[in-house]
């Protein structure tokens, strides 16, 4: 895995970004960007969701597990939610999700949250460009686990976490005189 990371030079690397777009605003913004012939990178895969409030944070965790290099979540601007306040609830969740994943070692550049209204096709295109640049700057995502440590992982050893003996723990020595 470490090798493939080196091979994929950062310039050539084309990230796979999953975009969760709210049906009422951001998905329409993506549509508008398309019908206005605005160019933006093709790295995003759009997933239409009814509202950002519907997006279970576990879906984002699972998406990264399944190999996406980055995430974009975009909904209506605060106050403009089709369901009145779905995006307000979503906002709190995203803040905590972002805090959690960054704390656990996911680069902040991979997690992108923003708001795009249905009239903002131009903004949507610029957001996508921005997101792709951000994800490219951190390179391919190789999973939640640190690749260096995984080389020591031996499933047969019963307890895989137990790789290093504790220096202080040895008792045959110090007990004998």
């Amino acid at each position, binding site marked *: 895995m470490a090798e493939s990371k080196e091979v994929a030079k950062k310039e050539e690397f084309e990230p796979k970004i999953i975009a969760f777009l709210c049906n009422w605003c951001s998905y329409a913004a993506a549509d508008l960007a398309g019908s206005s012939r605005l160019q933006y990178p093709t790295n995003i895969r759009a997933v239409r969701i009814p509202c950002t409030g519907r997006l279970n944070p576990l879906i984002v965790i699972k998406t990264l*597990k399944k190999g996406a290099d980055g995430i974009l979540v975009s909904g209506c601007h605060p106050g403009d939610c089709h369901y009145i306040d779905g995006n307000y*609830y979503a906002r709190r969740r995203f*803040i905590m999700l*972002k805090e959690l994943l960054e*704390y656990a*070692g996911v680069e902040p550049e991979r997690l992108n*949250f923003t708001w795009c209204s249905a009239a903002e096709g131009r903004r949507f295109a610029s*957001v996508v460009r921005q997101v792709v640049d951000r994800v490219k700057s951190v390179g391919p995502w190789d999973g939640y686990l*640190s690749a*260096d440590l995984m080389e020591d992982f031996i499933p047969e050893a019963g307890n895989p976490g137990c790789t290093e003996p504790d220096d202080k723990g040895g008792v045959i020595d110090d007990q004998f005189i």
Partner: protein
Amino acid sequence: MTNSYKEITEDLQDIIEQIYKQEEFDRLLAYGRGLFSGLIEPVIVDKEAELDLDRLEFTDEAYQMLSKYLLKNRELKQVVVAKPCDTRAIAFYISENIIARDNLIVVGINGCPGIKDNTACDECDSKNPVIADYTAGNLMPEDEFAKDKSDLKYLLSEENQVTRKNHYTKEFMRCTQCYACRDACPVCYCDHCFVESNQPVWLEAGSGPEEDMVFHLMRTMHMPGRCVNCGACEMACPEGIEMRSLTSHLYHQAREYFDFRPGLAVDQKSLFSDYNEEDPEPGFLQQEGD
């Protein structure tokens, strides 16, 4: 200064004796010493059953969260010995309409002297019960326990992203997927946990290290706005995984961003079922090139 375990134990025995005389209830939840093992274990007895009051005890090993057992028999009238963190969990149950207040007789522990080896006690911000019908021990002034977070070595806020990733990889690789952390957690009460869900499959079968990591991230994501920072997850873990630093980080962040701490009042709305139009947007993509 805190109460001594002995004082609390004596108080508890008196109070429970009194409750047996005065109150109508179905079941008692308390701590006692194991008959053969000598370890502190939850004592769960019906009112009619025989109970040796001298067996009841509160020591620095009483780490189990008795509030968790309230969930098993929500319809019964239960007496529960509750540490301050337990009372916060109970307040959370009441605010979420899981248990009726009338079904509970809470024996709170004032000025909790803490639990051995539980890192949560180092950053405890509630040394007195939030709700209680009876209390054991003397009330302690809360501000006496204010602590500087920078003393807490296990919170890795100062470390960089790579160090943190290495740390959690190393920790979560040990996970045996027993889910004791979930089972011991007083605020994990879903009837159907995502772990056991097979439509959709959140966690794939087998026990690969990446699945372990995903489990812990998902579990932690369910915690902000619920976690009362009691440390039961880490105390329950048979592999000694340091998982509480994740939930603790979110606990402190929720407090910083939203001034929210769970289980402080029975009429509190939970973090994710409430919002403020003025909530901050840290790290969100800003307007650009419009």
